[in-house]
């Protein structure tokens, strides 16, 4: 046991889907277990944090860190695991870009706490009690991790060696990385993305692509798309054009538009901006001949009104890692 390299997996602000994705390796998980001493994973194993703290620095060969940084505890664990690991890998889009927890960056900390603890219709909190980092109770002082102002991707807190995107990462891609590390294969330069492509989901999508002109957007419940034609051309807001490939495009192949879970493609700093650039070029506000500038603007506005939530759609998985990182103070 002791001579096998150690593998750890930790969750910060995440949903547990990344752990499910690892379990989705199916029988390959036995190969993973044969190659590594998979000794720390709070979702699956009962190793204590004190065990990690007692390890010499750099003792863990690989740590898969999933989840974003939301609280002081998340950051503390990120720092601890960074110190103890030779390779720290941001695993899943929460860790690489903030993902769904990162959408909280559209609201302030105060707004979030107010909604969750005071304003929600199902809340019964007549004294208006809010969680505090430290509170005095009859039995002594209770401590809670500090809730940060913003959700941060892992790389904004510690140095990250590699990034594996996906919400969650596809099992075959996880296996590619595990197998490469286990075999001691040379890895790309630090800071690279592993287990994904460089291009966009369209590259892997088998739907027929023609000239794109969108005259109307539809929600997925409103139409049954043609099986072979690009969904975006049919008015479904497919994020495939602004999303990194590597997943194998399972969603568009199942008639569901890509929602962008692999984050921005290589070389793109801001997924939402890339989507705005792409969409802006293919909007078709209708016949504009002989119309005034105001009339044309009205037609364009009517077309855009059919998109329900711009930031929530274009930045669904990458708001925290985007250029502005969320809503800014004006």
């Amino acid at each position, binding site marked *: 046991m002791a001579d096998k390299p150690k593998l750890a997996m930790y969750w910060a602000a995440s949903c547990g889907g990344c752990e499910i994705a690892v379990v989705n390796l199916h029988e390959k998980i036995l190969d993973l277990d044969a190659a590594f001493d998979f000794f720390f994973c709070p979702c699956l194993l009962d190793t204590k944090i004190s065990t990690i703290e007692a390890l010499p620095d750099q003792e863990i060969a690989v740590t898969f860190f999933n989840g974003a940084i939301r609280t002081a505890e998340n950051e503390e664990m990120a720092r601890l695991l960074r110190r103890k690991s030779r390779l720290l890998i941001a695993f899943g889009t929460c860790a690489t870009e903030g993902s769904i927890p990162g959408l909280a960056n559209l609201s302030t900390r105060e707004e979030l706490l107010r909604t969750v603890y005071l304003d929600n219709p199902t809340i019964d909190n007549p004294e208006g009690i809010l969680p505090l980092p430290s509170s005095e109770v009859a039995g002594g002082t209770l401590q809670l991790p500090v809730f940060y102002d913003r959700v941060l991707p892992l790389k904004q807190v510690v140095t990250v060696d590699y990034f594996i995107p996906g919400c969650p990462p596809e099992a075959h891609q996880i296996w590619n990385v595990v197998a490469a590390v286990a075999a001691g294969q040379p890895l790309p330069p630090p800071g690279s993305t592993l287990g994904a492509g460089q291009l966009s989901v369209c590259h892997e999508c088998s739907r027929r692509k023609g000239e794109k002109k969108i005259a109307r957007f539809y929600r997925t419940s409103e139409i049954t798309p043609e099986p072979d034609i690009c969904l975006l051309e049919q008015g479904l807001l497919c994020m495939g054009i602004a999303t990194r490939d590597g997943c194998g495009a399972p969603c568009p192949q199942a008639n569901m538009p890509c929602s962008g879970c692999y984050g921005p493609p290589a070389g793109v700093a*801001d997924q939402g901006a890339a989507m*705005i650039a792409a969409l*802006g070029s293919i909007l078709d506000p209708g016949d504009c001949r002989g119309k005034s500038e105001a009339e044309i603007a009205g037609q364009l506005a009517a077309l*855009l009104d059919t998109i329900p939530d711009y*930031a929530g759609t274009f930045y669904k998985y990458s708001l925290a890692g985007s250029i502005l990182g969320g809503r800014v103070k004006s």
Partner: protein
Amino acid sequence: MTALIREKEKNVAQAAYQPRIVGFLCNWCSYAGADKAGTAQIAYPANLQIIRVMCSGRVEPQFVLQAFKQGADGVLILACHPGDCHYKEGNLRAAQRHTLLLRVLEQLGIKRSRCRFDHVSAVEGEKFVRIIQEMVDELNNKKGE
């Protein structure tokens, strides 16, 4: 006395505030329009930092976000008039992108007045100056709110 001093400090602070505007000007029309203002020696506020691009269609929304991130108070994108684009329809695309970008910017806490798109041709030096003046005035007013 202290109230007076405070009042004075406030005035100084207000006078010191100068909105910084990053302007993306297309090479063929708007940059020439700015040049026209220069050769005609029309005075205009020094708040604009001009970046010349080959076409307004080259202005990726990423550039605008980066400008705001680095502290710009306003971003101005100037293009040829519809039909005049050197590349046929780069300006039309830029206009559509801008409309969509404004909606996202609003959700990100950046008001519409901070990101303006307009058309300036090579002969419209005066219009160029008017647009900058309007934007500076608007940003100054907003700051006071």
